[in-house]
């Protein structure tokens, strides 16, 4: 007995001591200007080359270190030779948030952390691990101020100080967001009846389904399927009704109403439910993972899609092109169409969030934050963005700098060989190997090759002189897309962990998903309506009105910050 007591007390003492001493040292850094930063002159790419090699280490998120180093070799060499800059890009094969927790716990992290969620950035800032950037930006990063404009204000905390910057920001690089897709070849058979409202879409799908009840192997064909557990169905529908992030916004009163509390919500529910009841919706739509859905699409069993535009793109035409090779018929594809409910001014299918969801911070481990800021300044310049996104300019790569103009290689413009000639080649030349703060939005510059449009670090779309896409297939797919983006930046809401509203938000999201599933699988329209109203009551009792107010307040706060 005595032995046990001794052991127990020792253990408790041990626990107590270890708990109390668990702290990670915070480092001091010198955040003033560094007079000793000498440069030897601006190089051909606009970078003021330092005398002493500038070394920056940064954590970039998820990845395999060996693979990442391998892919970065061309850029490594390029930056060393022409810029006298060396990067140590650190990646781990662990979930980034978990790793960041450990970094905080051990006090062991590099000078810069990028591609982190806003939430994690806030945690680092709260613990004083992030360097204040306000003065640094003023002194060394005029490009950032210029490019971000008023959006930079959204990065300020309550004291007006800036501790984080966005990464993967910018004006929307997509053409389409939510959409109402349809199989082009089947739709052509009907004489290309263009549809502009949800009701017309339904009619079109119905007609096509009558003509194509089964595919070549005798399997049933469905008008719609899904791989998002039903959420894409209401997401896209809401965009057709002009809802913003699922809320109806009354601009005058500033009131946000969640869609479940609106009459349009009921319309949407009945609309989708009709697909289900008439057997036009794949009965397994709630079970499909992306790969299951992709299999159905590839086998020609899905006529249309109410959801995200690139899903049908990747699972449809890209997969068929790859599979059928030279025998591929360009008309076997999906077209994306913007659909608007009657009476709606503008559909909100393409959302453009200027500041994106990811952040970059300079940590207190940085020895010379000012030098890092200088680098940031260069990275956000148009030429910097091009080099970050496309790799080393040169004859081997997809682009080169010819007479001061940024020209793309002809082979890279061949759409049907895009993967080989464009994506693969630029990857081999270090594209996106090092990326700390660059935007993923559209690059606009007079030096850009006039033969392409919508150029971003992710993609570029070749066009002809009339401004149409060079590739016929792309033209076919996008001829009916409005492509008008709405600025969703100020509508982003942050949910902090210690705020009880985050719980409410999560609960409502979860409950909404299961209620929605119940609603749209109802056996009759009456039942669907009843389920909808029941869901409305349930969600309101869970605190939906509080959430609506919180979202409205967030918007107002963002607006105030933006207009500072």
């Amino acid at each position, binding site marked *: 007995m005595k032995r046990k007591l001794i052991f127990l007390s020792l253990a408790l003492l041990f*626990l107590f001591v270890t708990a*109390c001493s668990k702290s990670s040292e915070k480092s001091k850094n010198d955040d003033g200007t560094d007079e000793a930063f000498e440069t030897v002159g601006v190089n051909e790419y606009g970078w003021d080359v330092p005398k002493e090699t500038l070394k920056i280490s940064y954590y970039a998120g998820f990845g395999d270190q060996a693979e990442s180093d391998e892919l970065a070799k061309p850029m490594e060499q390029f930056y060393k030779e022409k810029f006298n800059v060396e990067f140590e890009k650190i990646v781990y094969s662990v979930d980034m948030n978990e790793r960041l927790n450990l970094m905080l716990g051990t006090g062991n992290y590099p000078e810069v952390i990028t591609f982190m969620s806003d939430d*994690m950035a806030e945690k680092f800032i709260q613990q004083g691990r992030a360097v204040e950037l306000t003065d640094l930006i003023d002194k060394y990063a005029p490009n950032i101020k210029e490019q971000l404009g008023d959006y930079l204000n959204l990065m300020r905390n309550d004291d007006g100080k800036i501790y984080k910057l966005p990464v993967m920001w910018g004006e929307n690089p997509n053409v389409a967001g939510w959409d109402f897709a349809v199989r082009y070849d089947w739709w052509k058979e009907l004489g290309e009846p263009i549809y502009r409202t949800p009701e017309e879409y339904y009619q079109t799908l119905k007609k096509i389904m009558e003509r194509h009840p089964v595919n070549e192997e005798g399997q049933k064909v469905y008008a719609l399927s899904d791989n998002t557990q039903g959420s894409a169905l209401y997401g896209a529908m809401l965009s057709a009704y002009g809802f913003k992030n699922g809320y109806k916004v009354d601009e005058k009163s500033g009131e946000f109403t969640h869609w479940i509390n609106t009459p349009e919500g009921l319309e949407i529910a009945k609309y989708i439910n009709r697909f289900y009841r008439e057997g036009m919706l794949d009965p397994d739509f*709630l*079970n499909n993972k992306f790969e*299951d859905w992709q299999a159905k699409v590839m086998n020609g069993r899905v006529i249309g899609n109410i959801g995200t535009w690139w899903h049908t793109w990747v699972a449809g035409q890209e997969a068929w092109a790859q599979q059928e090779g030279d025998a591929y018929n360009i008309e076997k594809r999906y077209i994306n169409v913007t659909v608007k409910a009657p009476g709606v001014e503008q559909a909100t299918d393409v959302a453009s969030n200027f500041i994106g969801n990811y952040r970059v911070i300079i940590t207190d481990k940085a020895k010379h934050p000012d030098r890092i800021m200088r680098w940031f300044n260069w990275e956000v310049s148009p030429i910097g963005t091009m080099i970050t996104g496309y790799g080393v300019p040169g004859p081997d790569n997809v682009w080169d700098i010819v007479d001061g103009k940024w020209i793309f290689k002809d082979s890279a413009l061949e759409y049907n060989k895009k993967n080989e000639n464009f994506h693969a080649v630029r990857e081999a030349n270090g594209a996106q190997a090092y990326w700390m703060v660059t935007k993923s939005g559209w690059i606009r510059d007079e030096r850009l090759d006039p033969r392409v449009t919508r150029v971003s670090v992710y993609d570029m779309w070749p066009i002809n002189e009339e401004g149409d896409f060079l590739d016929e297939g792309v033209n076919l797919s996008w001829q009916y897309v409005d492509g008008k983006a709405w600025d969703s930046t100020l509508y982003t809401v942050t949910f902090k962990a*210690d705020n009880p509203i985050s719980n409410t938000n999560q609960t409502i999201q979860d409950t909404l998903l299961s209620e929605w599933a119940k609603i749209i699988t109802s056996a009759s329209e009456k039942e669907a309506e009843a389920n909808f109203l029941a869901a409305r009551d349930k969600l309101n009792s869970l605190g939906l009105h509080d959430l609506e107010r919180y979202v409205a307040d967030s918007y107002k706060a963002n607006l105030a910050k933006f207009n500072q």
Partner: protein
Amino acid sequence: MQGSAAKIGYDYEPKPVSKGARKLRRLRREKELWIIAAIALAWVLVFAYAPMYGIIYSFFEYYPGMTLAESKFVGLKHYKDFFSLPDVWLIIRNTLVISTLGLTIGFVSPIILALLINEIRVRWFKRTIQTISYLPHFVSWIVVASIIFTLLGSEGFVNDVLLKLGWIERPLTILGEGSYFWALLTSANIWKGVGWSSIIYISAIAGVDQELYQAGAVDGLGRFGMAWHITLPGIRPTVLLLFILGIGSLLNAGFEQQLLLGTPKTREYHEVIDTYVYRYGIQMGRYSFATAVGFMSSVLGLFLVLLTNRISKKLTDMSII
């Protein structure tokens, strides 16, 4: 022969001695054992008990990187928060049902399998079946889920057969019915785990003294009699041990399976404590909350283990400690 509570000491030393001297003598005799024990204790102190200070953080608003002094003390707030989450009783119900199914059907199946395998007379067949039986253990849940969908989906094998036989007119949405979920999950768990779990029982069966069977044969026991009167009692310590330990996991009803097999329509039935805490604790960055719930489950688990152990000691005179 079992680990009874009585201490069997050496009793060929009738001289009365003082308590202290007796203790000293015992220590000397047990010296070697104590040396080994000390090493083990030192190891467990460092590797198992030292990190347990993490539990303290569940009483604070703690976040990794902060010191204890910097974190606000909140006492039982996180524990209370758990019970004030909406649907909390629903998820506790689901957790208990799923674990109970696992502790009953799921517990007995490997034993039965082991006994059946044991009855196979042809050696190569026995070894082959045994090897095949554990293969599902190595197939990831993602693949299992996709196979289940292929089987039970509206166009799946089962529906196909039923439609052809004319037993149903429209395909059954087995995967969409919440009430089927528990049966589905338990079946999937058994499918995946029965072979692997039976390994320990097969090895336990191998440890039953062969002479007992000889004696049984002499007494006129048939095959079933052998299994019932000799094999089963022979593996009783292992069975009891695994059962008692299993009870401690009553609040861990799986995680990956629910995420993969569950759909929005089955949420009422598939949401369990672990999935809930993952979304409301870990994903939202609420470290202390997640720690608190984990601690609660552990306390309850250990309590159940000790309780069941005591019952077992009373009923069968066997205890795991």
